């Protein structure tokens, strides 16, 4: 995977800022002072892709269903760190691999590719106390594709191709939260968002073998999330969030719901 200086630097900056700023006022995640929470997260994202400037017949796209277990630790009021582990089901379309001996095309009929989902989430209050709070948030997800194998139809001999996508998504930005209502805290999350990764294919037709790796990148690098935290009880929280990612060819979107139980 190629080194991506921009998102990595942004993430490092956010983490440093979050760790060095003093915790303030209200907690972005619940009311306890510190401790563990655990829960579930379900998400869906649909993103248009660019392939290193390669022209494709149709706009390449990725959709992914994400499910993960969350383990969250609150270090102090207003400062939480969460880890995700789960599974992703990703669909790709509009990607053609032309450097293989037999070119291959992935489209809507090509099926879903599973992957291990790992993620980390950091949230820290910057300004609080009033009804309007300002937090800072950084998210990172990685889907490590487990690979999928297809038979190559129509050839005079048997052949197969194995595809393995790996993608990562990092976002960071301020969270503007309204905390004036009891139990409900709607928020706005304008963020820098970067999706990148690779898709590798290996083709084998008897002694004829080839491989091709394509770098993929999400179109658009800014997003706007709109969501709300619901405090259902002292120990049970729920979050729903929808995000839009505008780019030159349209607008992509993502949805996410989370529920967390504090120990």
């Amino acid at each position, binding site marked *: 995977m190629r080194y991506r200086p921009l998102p990595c630097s942004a993430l490092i900056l956010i983490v440093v800022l979050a760790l060095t700023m003093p915790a303030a006022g209200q907690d972005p995640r619940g009311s306890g002072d510190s401790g563990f929470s655990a829960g579930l997260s379900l998400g869906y994202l649909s993103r248009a892709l660019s392939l290193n400037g390669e022209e494709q017949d149709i706009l390449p796209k990725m959709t992914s269903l994400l499910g993960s277990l969350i383990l969250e630790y609150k270090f102090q009021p207003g400062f939480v760190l969460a880890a995700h582990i789960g599974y992703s089901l990703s669909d790709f379309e509009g990607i053609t*691999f*032309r450097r293989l001996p*037999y070119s291959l095309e992935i489209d809507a009929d090509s099926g879903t590719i599973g992957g291990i989902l790992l993620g980390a989430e950091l949230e820290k209050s910057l300004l609080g106390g009033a009804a309007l709070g300002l937090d800072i948030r950084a998210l990172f997800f990685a889907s490590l594709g487990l690979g999928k194998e297809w038979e190559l139809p129509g050839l005079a*001999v048997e052949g197969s191709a194995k595809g393995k996508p790996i993608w990562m998504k990092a976002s960071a930005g301020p969270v503007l939260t309204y905390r004036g209502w009891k139990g409900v805290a709607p928020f706005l999350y304008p963020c820098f968002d970067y999706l990148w990764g690779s898709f590798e294919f290996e083709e084998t037709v008897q002694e*004829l073998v*080839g491989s091709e790796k394509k770098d993929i990148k999400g179109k658009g690098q800014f997003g706007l999330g709109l969501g709300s935290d619901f405090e259902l009880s002292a120990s049970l929280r729920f979050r729903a969030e929808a995000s839009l990612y505008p780019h030159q060819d349209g607008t992509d979107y993502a949805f996410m719901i989370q529920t967390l139980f504090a120990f």
Partner: protein
Amino acid sequence: MTALNKKSLIVAALLLGLFASGDSLQKARTEKAPERAASAIRRTIHSFDGGLPLHTKGPRYAPGQLLVRFKPSVSTQFVNATLAEYGTEKIKRISQLNLYQVRIPDWASVEEMAYAISQNPEVLSAGPNYAARIAVTPNDPLFRYQYALHNTGQDVGPPGSPSGRASADIKAPAGWEETKGTAETVIAIIDSGIDFEHPDLKNKIISPGHDFANDDGDATDDNGHGTYVAGIAAADTNNNEGIAGVGWNCKILPVKVTDAEGSAWYDDLIDGILWAADNGAHVINLSLGGEESDDSLRDALKYAHDKGVVIAASAGNDDAAVFYPAAYDAYCLAVAATDYDDARASYSCYGPEVDVAAPGEWVLSTYPTTMVDLNEYLPYIWGNGTSSSAPHVAGLAGLIKGLKPWLTVDEIMDVIRFSSDDVNSEEHSGKDEYIGYGRINIEKALVPIKLSK
């Protein structure tokens, strides 16, 4: 190489006339149709239209548009209200079907909006406004006779000739949608030379080549066979003239090794192969061969192979063992002949060395302008034999070489082999001695394979 004693065995160019079969190119000229009427095309055929429009790549469907079909009972007012509800804008109505072409908002994708609208119970269907295209069809007026490239079931020759069977072809138009090759790819035609003035070849020939039969630098064709073979491999295509060549944009390097009777000594053949490999050939076509093996001939093939040259060689027309050099399996593709019905040609040589087959019956191609009365005939001719088959494969090799220059010779040979259609699978399933892996299929070799779950 000059030290090599000339062998008494001559290499017979696979002019079918030189083989005993009655299906020779020459015989096509002299016997199959009296007074050449069947084999040369009359000038009067010039009234052909200019060919169909050229396909260009484009989007699969109209961006930002949907076709939405409502139930017949749904009123216009309801339709307008529904379309407005989804933020779409009506472009056109096709009243007979209650079908609406609509523009969707910028923020929505075609697929998602199609899905959303299709959930409406009053909507019969909603989907993209797909693009329809005419497949790549070159404007060469005689293309319609080239059943080998695109078989629609047409008559394969002049009136009275047999009709082909639809799809018994090498799928050239579909393959050309992916690539038409590049002008940097050079196909060497090692044969009887080439007519440099032929209107369908003159712009494709990259150099005067070399004449090993007469030891000079003028590879002008004095037999007709080389011109015929060159046209199949890479005639000037989409030039409103004559025929289309398989290697649409590929160039031709003429190498003359046979005399005017179509015979060559092995030393000249060896010289020709080595010279072509050293002078820029990416592909070599050898529509000739002899019955005797020769280590030097094999080594010449190996030399070219090791230099990255793909070699297509005719299997032979004697209904016997595969001829040399085609039989040097490791270094070239031995090509058998099929017909307009995808049946093996009865004369096609056979053996384990046969790799693939290509159409070899009633194949129309270029003929030297100096050998026909141009006032009466066009310089084209129908020919039969594995001589016609090999240049189809050479053309395909040229297309692959241009599209994927990083592939090795052996990989290109395998791509051609494994993408073939096993058209005799009912009698001989899998690779067999008669047509090898099958009749070549340009579409499968070039066009991306769609993966489905």
